[in-house]
C-alpha cells in the first residue's frame, strides 16, 4: 500500500512540477508532416509527400523550380546549354558548393547520383523513371524481361547496367546529359526529388534513416525520432546563404484535427486545416487570418473500367459526367476549396482554358444517353475508393447529385491496400483517383490516359479505339518547344479524352493550411511544399 501511495505522490509531483508551456524560440519553427512520417530519407527511394518534404529542404538538384511560377531555375547547375536537336544538355556546375560532409560538389557527384538513381536496387522511387526514362542508357539500366512463348526456356535475365550511360562527366565542373527523345520538360523533371545530387560514395553503407542524405541544401537532418519528429538544422555553409530559421521540428501528428488543436495551442506553426474544421476556423477571426489556401495542380477523377459492359459504353460514361453537380459538391463537402473539373488540365497550366467545359450539367441529356444505351429506367453503378474521409464525403455528395439523372451511385469504400489491389487488377466499374501532378507540365496530366501502368492497362486504356491517337500526340507533344504549338497538341489530347470520357473529372483540389502569422516570406510554395529556407520570422 505504501508503494501505491508513494507512486501517487510521485505522479502528483510530476503532474504539477513540469507544467508550463515552453516559450517559443525565435529561430525554431515547428510543423507537422501532412500524412504520417517519412518512409525513408533516401532520395532515391523516396515516394511519399512526407519523404519529399524532408528531401526538398535538405537536398537540391541541378535545377529547382521557382516557388511562385514553378518554372525550372538554376540550382546546383548555374547554367546550361541545349544542343539544337534538343538531345544534349550540358550543365555547368556552381563552383562554390560544398556538401554537408565538407566535400566540394563536382561532376562526379552528379554522375554518382544519377547512376544510383538508375540502379533498380537503389532507385526504387517512381521518380527514378520520371527523371531518367528518356535519358540514353535507361533501357540498359532497367532491362525489361523478355516475354517468351509458353514452353520456351526462359532466357537468363539481363543484368542491369548499374549506371546510366547518358550522363557523362566532361570535366569537374561540367556534366553532359544525352536524351533519346528531345523532351522539353527535362529541366522540370530534374527538379523532382529523385533528381537531387548526393555526395559521391556517401550512400555506401550509410544509414540514411539515422543520418539523412549528404546533400547541399539549406538544412541538414539533425535527428529522426521514429514516429515522433524529424529535426532539421540550418546548414551554416549553404551556398545560398544561411537561412533565418535555424531549427525546424517536423512532428508526426497523423490526425488532422489534433494538428489544429496543436496549432491553436501555439505548439505548431503550420498545420493541416481539414474540411471538417473549416467552418469553425472561419468563424474565428484570429484563426481565419492565418488560413492559407493554395490551389493545387491536381485532378480528382474517376478512372473507368473500359472493359466493363456498363462503363465500356461511352454513353454511360458521358451520362454520368453530365449528371454530376460539381459546384455543389465543392461548396458542400469541400467548403468551397476547389474548382469544378470539366476538362483534363487544372488551372495554373498553360493548357488550362477556363472557357472549356466538356460537361455542362444536363440531366435531360444524361437520361437520354442512358435510355439510348439501354438503361431507360436508370442505371446502378458502384464506385470504389479507399477510406479517405474527404473522398468518401465527396463520393456520397456525387451520388446525391447524379441520382437526379436516374443513376444509383453506390460508394464502396475499402482499406487502401485492398482498393489498390483491385484498382491495379481493375476489378471494378470505376474508382476514385486523387492525382496530384509530379511536375507542372501538361504531359504529366496525360499520364492518366496512357497505358504505361498495369493499373490502366487492365482497365483497357491500351486497347480503347483512341489509344494510338493519344499516344502519337503525346510523343509529338513532349518533344515540341514550350509554346502555343505544344499546348495545342496537349489540348487536342484533352479533347479526345473528354469526347470519349476516358476519365470522369470531378474537381481540381486546393490545399488549405493554418500558417502562423509569425511566418513571413514564402512558407509554402505554389507546389504545396513547405520551404523553410524561404521563411521570414516576423
Amino acid at each position: 500500500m505504501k508503494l501505491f501511495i508513494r507512486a501517487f505522490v510521485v505522479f502528483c509531483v510530476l503532474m504539477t512540477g513540469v507544467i508550463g508551456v515552453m516559450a517559443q524560440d525565435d529561430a525554431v519553427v515547428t510543423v507537422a508532416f501532412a500524412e504520417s512520417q517519412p518512409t525513408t530519407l533516401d532520395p532515391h527511394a523516396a515516394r511519399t509527400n512526407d519523404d519529399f518534404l524532408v528531401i526538398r529542404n535538405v537536398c537540391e538538384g541541378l535545377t529547382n523550380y521557382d516557388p511562385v511560377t514553378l518554372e525550372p531555375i538554376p540550382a546546383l547547375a548555374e547554367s546550361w546549354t541545349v544542343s539544337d536537336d534538343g538531345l544534349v544538355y550540358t550543365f555547368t556546375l556552381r563552383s562554390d558548393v560544398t556538401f554537408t560532409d565538407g566535400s566540394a560538389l563536382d561532376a562526379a557527384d552528379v554522375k554518382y547520383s544519377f547512376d544510383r538513381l538508375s540502379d533498380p536496387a537503389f532507385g526504387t522511387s517512381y521518380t527514378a523513371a520520371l527523371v531518367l526514362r528518356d535519358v540514353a542508357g535507361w533501357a540498359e539500366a532497367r532491362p525489361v524481361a523478355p516475354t517468351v512463348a509458353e514452353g520456351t526456356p526462359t532466357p537468363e535475365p539481363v543484368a542491369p547496367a548499374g549506371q546510366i550511360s547518358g550522363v557523362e562527366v566532361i570535366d569537374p565542373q561540367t556534366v553532359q546529359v544525352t536524351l533519346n527523345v528531345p523532351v522539353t520538360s527535362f529541366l522540370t523533371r530534374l527538379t523532382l526529388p529523385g533528381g537531387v545530387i548526393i555526395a559521391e560514395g556517401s550512400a555506401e553503407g550509410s544509414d540514411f534513416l539515422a543520418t539523412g542524405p549528404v546533400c547541399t541544401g539549406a538544412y541538414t537532418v539533425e535527428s529522426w525520432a521514429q514516429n515522433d519528429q524529424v529535426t532539421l538544422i540550418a546548414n551554416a555553409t549553404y551556398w545560398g546563404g544561411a537561412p533565418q530559421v535555424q531549427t525546424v521540428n517536423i512532428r508526426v501528428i497523423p490526425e488532422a484535427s489534433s494538428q489544429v488543436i496543436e496549432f491553436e495551442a501555439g505548439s505548431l506553426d503550420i498545420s493541416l486545416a481539414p474540411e471538417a474544421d473549416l467552418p469553425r476556423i472561419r468563424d474565428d477571426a484570429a484563426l481565419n487570418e492565418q488560413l492559407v489556401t493554395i490551389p493545387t495542380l491536381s485532378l480528382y477523377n474517376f478512372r473507368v473500367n473500359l472493359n466493363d459492359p456498363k462503363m465500356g459504353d461511352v454513353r454511360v460514361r458521358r451520362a454520368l459526367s453530365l449528371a454530376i453537380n460539381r459546384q455543389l459538391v465543392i461548396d458542400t463537402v469541400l467548403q468551397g476549396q476547389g474548382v469544378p473539373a470539366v476538362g483534363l488540365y487544372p488551372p495554373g497550366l498553360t493548357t488550362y482554358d477556363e472557357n472549356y467545359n466538356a460537361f455542362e450539367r444536363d440531366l435531360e441529356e444524361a437520361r437520354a444517353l442512358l435510355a439510348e444505351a439501354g438503361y431507360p429506367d436508370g442505371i446502378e453503378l458502384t464506385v470504389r475508393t479507399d477510406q479517405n474521409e474527404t473522398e468518401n464525403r465527396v463520393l456520397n455528395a456525387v451520388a446525391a447529385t447524379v441520382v437526379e439523372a436516374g443513376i444509383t451511385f453506390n460508394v464502396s469504400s475499402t482499406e487502401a491496400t485492398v482498393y489498390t489491389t483491385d484498382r491495379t487488377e481493375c476489378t471494378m466499374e470505376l474508382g476514385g483517383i486523387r492525382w496530384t501532378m509530379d511536375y507542372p507540365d501538361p504531359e504529366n496530366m496525360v499520364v492518366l490516359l496512357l497505358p504505361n501502368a498495369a493499373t490502366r492497362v487492365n482497365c483497357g486504356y491500351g486497347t480503347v479505339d483512341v489509344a494510338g491517337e493519344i499516344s502519337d500526340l503525346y510523343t509529338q507533344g513532349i518533344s515540341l518547344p514550350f509554346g502555343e504549338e505544344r499546348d495545342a497538341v496537349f489540348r487536342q489530347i484533352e479533347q479526345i479524352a473528354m469526347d470519349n470520357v476516358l476519365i470522369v473529372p470531378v474537381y481540381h483540389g486546393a490545399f488549405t493550411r493554418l500558417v502562423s502569422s509569425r511566418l513571413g516570406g514564402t512558407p509554402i510554395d505554389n507546389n504545396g511544399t513547405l520551404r523553410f529556407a524561404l521563411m521570414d520570422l516576423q
Partner: protein
Amino acid sequence: MLQYFLRRLIQFIPTLLGIYILTFALMRVLPGDAAQFLEGDRGDDQSLAATRARLGLDEPLTTQFLLFFRDAVQGELGRSFITNRPVSDMIGQAFPHTAALAICAMLIAVTVGISLGITAAMTQNSIWDNIARLIALIGVSVPVFWLGLQLQILFGLQLRLLPVSGAGFDEHLILPSVAASFGMMAVLMRITRSTLLEVLNQDYIRTARGKGLHPRRVILRHAISNALLPIVTVWGTGLASLLSGTLLVEVIFSYPGMGRLLVDSIGARDYPSVQGLVITFALIYAGLNLFVDMLYPIVDPRIRYA
C-alpha cells in the same frame, strides 16, 4: 517452483509457434497486395515484379514461411516492407514509449482504482460508495478517444497546462496516461470493492474487529491482503493489454508506441513488421501471465507450485 517455472517456459514454445503460424496465415489471407500498394497507381508489370522480388513475395508461400521462420528462430525479424528498416529496430524504438505509457497508466489505475475500491467497500451504500461506483461506471463506459479529446481540449487548449500531443518521457506522458488508465482504473475499483466486501464478511475480520483493532489496520493488514488475489490477476492482464498497445490513446496523442505501429503495418500489409509485433505481444502476454502466476504464492502462501 523452479521446475514449474521451466515447465511453463517450455509450454510456451508451442504456443508461440501456433501464434506465429496463425499470424502468417492471417496476413496472407487478407486481401490486398503489399507490392501493389507500394507501387501505387504508377507501377507497370515490370516494376511490380521487381518490387515483389525485392520483398521476397515472389517465392511460394511455403518458402516464404520457412525463410521467415528460420530468421525468427535466430531472433531476426526481417526488414519492414515500407521503410526497409529492421523490424527489431522499429519495435525497439516503439517499446520504451509504450512501456512508459503503460507503467504510468498502470500506476494511476492502481492507486486511484484500489483507493476508490477500498473507500467504496468500507462505506458500502453510502454517498461515497455511490460516487466511487459512478466514477467506475464512467470509467468503463466512456470511450477512450472521446476522453482523450476532452483532456486535450481542457488541459492543452483551454488551460494550456500540458502539451496536446507528442512523444517524450516527461509531461507529454501525463494526458495519455490518464486517458489510458481510465478503463483499467474502473475495473480495478470494481474488483477491489467486490472482493473486499466478500472478505469483510469473513469470520477472521469480525475477530480482528472484536479484538479492538483500528479499522484501518483491519482493512490494510487483514482484509486487503486476502482480497489481493483477484486484484493481482486483473492487474496482470490489464498491464499486458496496456503494454500491447493502447492504440486509440497512441493515435489521439500522436504517441509513438507499438499499437500505432501495428495498425500502420497491418494497413500497409507490412508482413515482417506485423509478424514481429505479434510475436512481441505474445511474449509480453505470456511473460506477464507467468509473472502473475509467480506472484500468487507470495500473495497467498497457501498456493504452492510443485
